[in-house]
């Protein structure tokens, strides 16, 4: 990649901000965001990630993106996973192991039904966005 000038950076930011905001509009992007901090990984987030990818593959869900992010703060229920699916509320699930991951794919993504036992909600509102 070449070095940015000020204008390049501004253009890039605009472009990426739009891309990013679409994530929150829940319209066309379905995604699974996995907390991959040390605690998440320690609690098995890598297996969770693999389980998601496998389950999405098995069910032919090609439009759901799997992403990683840092620690979401709810360390006592790691691994934590945020599931963004159009038409469904965005929720954070806790204690998501491989089995739960499969269940999320089947129930939440395909069945459009929340999973009782693992909802953590979003821990906090983000002041920066307001």
């Amino acid at each position: 990649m070449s070095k940015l000038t000020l204008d390049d950076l501004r253009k890039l930011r605009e472009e990426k901000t739009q891309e990013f905001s679409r994530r929150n509009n829940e319209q066309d992007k379905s995604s699974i965001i996995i907390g991959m901090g040390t605690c998440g990984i320690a609690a098995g987030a890598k297996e969770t990630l693999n389980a998601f990818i496998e389950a999405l593959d098995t069910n032919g869900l090609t439009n759901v993106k799997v992403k990683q992010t840092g620690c979401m703060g709810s360390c006592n229920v790691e691994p934590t996973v945020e599931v963004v699916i159009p038409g469904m509320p965005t929720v954070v699930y806790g204690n998501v192991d491989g089995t739960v991951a499969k269940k999320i794919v089947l129930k939440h993504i395909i069945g459009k039904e929340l999973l009782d036992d693992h909802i953590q909600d979003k821990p906090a509102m983000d002041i920066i966005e307001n």
Partner: protein
Amino acid sequence: MSEQINFSQELNDYIAEWKDKPGNLIMILHKVQEEFGYVPRKAALKLTEMIDVTLAKIYGVITFYHYFKLEEPGKYQIQVCMGTACYLKGGQDIIDELETNFGIPVNGTSEDRKFSLEALRCVGCCGLAPVMIIDKQVYGKLTKEEIPGILKKYQ
């Protein structure tokens, strides 16, 4: 100082890259330990020539920082977190169990050289306290009753 110790190409390259940077010693020792699992005396002696530093300084540094080891560790390295959360939730019991019932001394190695045991400051998984790590695999919310089963996996 009979025969010299061999460094891998990667390590030699790394040392060459860092040779003239001030404050390189700790970074280079990390790399040496990454290669050997500890810092062998012969490696330290070799470094004295490669980066023009005294052996006394190298040992002063190695023995100051608990991350560096002078002895070859066991085949599997067990780390038990002794951060406050883990301590409050029974980290010491885990260590006691490993020491008394499995003969793995803290900061030492079992007689069969299979396991080394270290108490760590804080692994940063306080939500999973108490935590034990064997070769990067984390066992959280551990009870001492689970230990025999876990160690069996490494036999």
